[in-house]
């Protein structure tokens, strides 16, 4: 198993390089956080989440992923299928990070496609575990936090914090912001 620091560096490097928007960056100026960490503040008023017009199947969330060294954003999209949930993670420019399938019975995430730098066994293992927890919370918010995680659930936002690797995932529904 890679050391913690090497693992975190690689994960941060991957996120930096690929996910915002085409490449990565280090935070040199930002708001709303300690030590330059970017915390996305979801200003969407609490209320029932409505699916985008014309789409009754795919559910869409904004996703913000942050580590001590980097913060990135994009979209987390899932579709319920017969016995599984299909999902994709993309950024605002439409670039794909991952395609996956989630088995609600086993609770396991299987990656179908994963962008190159993420395709390391220890990263896949970490992300699969974190995304599995995220999917469970997005579909069943009332579940308790497992060991090693802090989970915060508001009316429409889910925040998952991996305590060991200090990685935070924040999910909020994607709503049409045209009129705001």
């Amino acid at each position, binding site marked *: 198993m890679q050391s913690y620091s090497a693992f975190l560096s690689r994960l941060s490097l991957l996120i930096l390089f690929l996910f915002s928007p085409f490449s990565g960056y280090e935070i*040199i100026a930002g708001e709303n956080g300690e030590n330059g960490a970017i915390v*996305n503040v979801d200003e969407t008023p609490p209320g029932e989440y409505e699916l985008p017009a014309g789409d009754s199947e795919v559910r869409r969330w*904004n996703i913000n992923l942050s580590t001590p060294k980097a913060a990135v954003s994009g979209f987390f999209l899932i579709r319920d299928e017969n016995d599984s949930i299909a999902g994709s993670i993309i950024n605002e420019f439409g670039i794909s990070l991952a395609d996956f399938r989630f088995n609600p019975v086993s609770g396991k995430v299987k990656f179908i496609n994963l962008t190159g730098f993420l395709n390391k066994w220890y990263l896949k293992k970490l992300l699969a575990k974190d995304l599995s927890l995220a999917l469970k919370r997005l579909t069943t918010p009332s579940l308790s936090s497992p060991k090693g995680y802090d989970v915060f659930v508001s009316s429409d936002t889910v925040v998952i914090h991996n305590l060991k690797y200090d990685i935070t995932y924040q999910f909020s529904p994607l709503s049409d912001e045209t009129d705001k």
Partner: protein
Amino acid sequence: MKHIFYILIITIFSVCNPIIGVAVTPVIGSELTNTVTALNKASAQLKSMECEFVQTKNLKMLKDKMVSKGKMYYAAPDKLRWEYTNPYQYLFIFNGSKVFIKNKGTQNVIDTKSNKIFKEVARIMMQTVTGKALSDSNDFVISVSKDATTYFVSMTPKKRDLKQLFQSVTLSFNRNSKLIDCIRINEKNGDYTVIKLTNLKSNRSLDAKLFSIP
């Protein structure tokens, strides 16, 4: 061998590229030289550009599309403003050596001097949306085809870093104006993104505030 290559190009464009018409023919020989020269000349004369765009992300895994809209502004040689307005608000400004990203309540400034990869990708992004990438043979393998109204320039990345991001990019140039009006990005996982540029205005004076970075 050359004939097989061009037949393959025709087949690929005809079968896999939804943004082109039926009668697409390769551009080769002297016509290729003249076409590239004309497109390069048009892009070199492009000092500014503004347009609206509609971006359609086709997701193979979900059998779904995600449509977003926005506006783009470009000022030669190194200023680009790419702004999403619907269904999300996201702003990307590239100005010289700085990049500004604003996403809802958060914003970041990135110095590309300390991040060569980011600088490179930002440069390619700007060249792609303005059509200037056609003259950049260092980054891409380029082939050209046409139909009645459009030149299609297919660019396949050479560098490993870019190959990780996408499989190929196809730029559509209006044959009359020689300006780009559509971009298609093909990804390795089968997804593709089509960006259509509309209400395009070129070489007009643009407010410098559009590219200002806090």
